[in-house]
């Protein structure tokens, strides 16, 4: 049998790279007098095959570029200039190479975490970060940055979380970034405490304003065990002014980290969700929201689905008001540490504002006010009670192009939070981060 799909994905690139590495490896082996001496013909044959594949793909790309250039007026998404075909080709190659590097790097990190000692583990992560930096090239270093983040949160059950993290963000081109993120979090409820460590490779491709692909893959360590985590998020807007059709799709997997009990039970969430914005008339548009998640721990799996819709009116550049209705459902109750009601209904009026000044001062504000009600498993819906949410973010430019970001988030909404533990759960979180540009 052949595992994988020949010719698709990153497999083809992996084997082409393997073939191109053969002459170097063989020369090294000859120099060290290792292995049988009659391999050169085979090595040359396979390396030649790889070069022929590259040449064939280059030729196909060139022909495609010509074809696309010829029919450009008929392609609705084709807003690029004369070099658009090259951009498409380069972006595809960068994405494939980046994905392959992330997968192979992820495997090495996983191996380092499992097999090597703690000292070597640190060395590997440092080397990987250094390798990504070298691979990204010095020309892009001016746009690269390193960030540090400290965040804290507290909820109505007395759970307190403190998180420290760092991110290395390297710009490979004007549209592509790669990076490495690591963080450590500590959660306590006053009686017990638990830790969570995360390390992830990140990649972002922004082909144009408003559209992006973010990939994040890594490992999370909770309750002395490792688990994979990651996210793929695709954001697309038909027009760059933000007024047209827009889609935001996200798939993610991670460990719920709101309480020591959730961490002890290693509750993993695998979620697929999306938001679709459809313009109607003028500044009016409708928004559909859907998410489906599987919550798994060692004893059970539970489905959580969320469906919602909103009518949105753009009132200012970067601002909107909306009326939103959403329903959250769980398949059954859980003893793993999260609140799993049969149904939660929330109706909210909200407003969102995003401002960025010429001096790079950024401000975002999201407020929602409404009502919500909860039906426990096997019980009817309870009474309506207030449902509030708020989020504010301020970005301040400091000396030397350093930026300071402050985020505050609060929620008082029945059972609607990601890691809500009771029907009347409330929480407040703040995060402070500094972003230094790399020289």
């Amino acid at each position: 049998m052949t595992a994988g799909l020949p010719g698709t994905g990153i497999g083809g690139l992996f084997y082409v790279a393997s073939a191109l590495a053969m002459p170097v490896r063989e020369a090294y082996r000859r120099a060290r007098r290792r292995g049988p001496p009659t391999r050169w013909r085979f090595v040359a044959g396979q390396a030649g095959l790889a070069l022929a594949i590259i040449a064939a793909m280059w030729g196909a790309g060139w022909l495609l570029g010509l074809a696309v250039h010829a029919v450009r007026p008929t392609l609705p998404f084709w807003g690029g200039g004369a070099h658009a075909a090259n951009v498409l080709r380069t972006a595809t190659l960068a994405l494939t190479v980046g994905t392959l590097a992330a997968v192979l790097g992820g495997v090495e990190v996983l191996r380092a975490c499992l097999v090597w000692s703690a000292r070597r583990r640190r060395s590997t992560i440092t080397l990987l970060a250094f390798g990504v930096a070298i691979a990204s090239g010095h020309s892009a270093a001016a746009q690269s940055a390193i960030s540090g983040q400290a965040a804290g949160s507290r909820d109505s059950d007395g759970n307190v979380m403190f998180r420290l993290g760092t991110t290395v963000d390297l710009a490979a081109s004007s549209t592509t970034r790669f990076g490495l993120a690591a963080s450590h979090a500590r959660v306590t409820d006053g009686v017990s405490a638990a830790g969570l460590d995360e390390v992830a490779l990140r990649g972002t491709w922004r082909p144009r304003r408003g559209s992006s692909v973010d990939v994040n893959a890594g490992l999370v360590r909770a309750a002395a065990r490792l688990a994979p985590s990651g996210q793929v998020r695709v954001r697309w807007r038909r027009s760059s002014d933000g007024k047209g059709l827009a889609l935001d799709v996200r798939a993610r997997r991670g460990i719920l980290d709101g309480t020591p009990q959730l961490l002890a039970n290693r509750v993993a969430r695998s979620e697929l969700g999306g938001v679709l914005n459809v313009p109607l008339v003028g500044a009016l548009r409708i928004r559909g929201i859907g998410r489906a998640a599987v919550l798994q721990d060692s004893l059970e799996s539970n489905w959580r689905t969320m469906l919602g819709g909103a009518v949105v009116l753009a009132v200012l550049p970067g601002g909107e008001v909306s009326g939103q209705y959403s329903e959250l459902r769980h398949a059954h109750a859980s003893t793993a540490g999260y609140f799993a009601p049969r149904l939660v209904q929330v109706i909210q009026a909200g407003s969102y504002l995003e401002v960025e000044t010429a001096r790079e001062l950024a401000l975002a504000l999201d407020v929602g006010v409404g009502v919500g009600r909860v039906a426990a498993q096997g019980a009817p819906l309870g009474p309506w009670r207030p449902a509030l949410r708020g989020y504010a973010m301020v970005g301040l430019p400091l000396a030397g192009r350093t930026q300071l970001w402050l985020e505050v988030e609060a929620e008082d909404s029945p059972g609607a939070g990601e890691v809500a533990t009771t029907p009347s759960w409330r929480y407040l979180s703040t995060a402070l981060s500094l972003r230094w540009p790399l020289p």
Partner: protein
Amino acid sequence: MIVPAYNEAASVADTIRSLQAQTAPARQILVVDDCSTDGTGAVAAALGVTVVRPPANTGSKAGAQTFALRYVRTPLTLALDADTVLARDGIERLLPAFERPAVAAACGFVLPQRVRSVWERGRYIEYLFAFTFYKQLQEYYGKPLISSGCFSMYRTELLRSLGGWSDRTLAEDMDLTWSLYQAGHDVRFMPEAVCYPIEPRTFRLMRTQLRRWSHGFIQNVKLHWRGVLTVPYLRSAVAVALWDATVAAGLYLIILPILAVLLASPWVLLGYVIDIPAVLVPVIVGAARRREIGRALASMPAFFVLRTVNALFFLRAAIAELLFGRSLRVYEKGH
């Protein structure tokens, strides 16, 4: 030589004759008639080979082969599917692999016996591509991903010490290969040793085989991932194969059509065939060595059909095994 057979009356005779005609003749040919109902055992016995029959159907190829292992009296054991014939020098070309004591298993080049239906043609291109390019590189780096179950040779004592072929996954050949690597042994791919299995000719048969292969691959990843991480190159090859079988399959099947609709442009669907040149190069090289360029070119469209179906099955298996924990356990015979 072990030939596991369940209802293979139509093909087992060709398999046995190809073994009897080998330039390096077999000392012992054991056909395991796994309680067939079509007279497979009688067909084999008429050709003068030893036929053994378990008391009840073993339920899998792994079970049938392991049952026969107790009757093997030779230092090397060849496992050959009952729908597979060998080139006359197949065994002779495979034997040199065992000159190195560290080698525990060896496999050969696989090509479909019949290339008629769209599924057989798709598989023909898949094999030409994989065995001309991927598998040769895996061999160079010392880690063929799988010692193919349809035609592989093993050191008998080593095989016995591992308990034979395990039926804990649906891909017993992959399970055994990865177990051998983890135990520190080598596996070789000998491209000059050629075998010709009958590939699924209909979608129904192909579906059965792909279900088994896709679930078997994911089951082996789940079973061996910790051990595989300790084996250089294999860990990279497995990670890449897993990515392509899951995420890339999803992108291939879901994202491309969505993008085509969202962008209102059928040009996006070119993504399905954009890699024709990359596939074509090794295929043409492999076909030229066999003077089959015309057949290869005529079969190329079928490859893209099979690849799409392949992606669907691998994605389904990954979702079932990894997301929902629904493991496929019933071994269904396809081809």
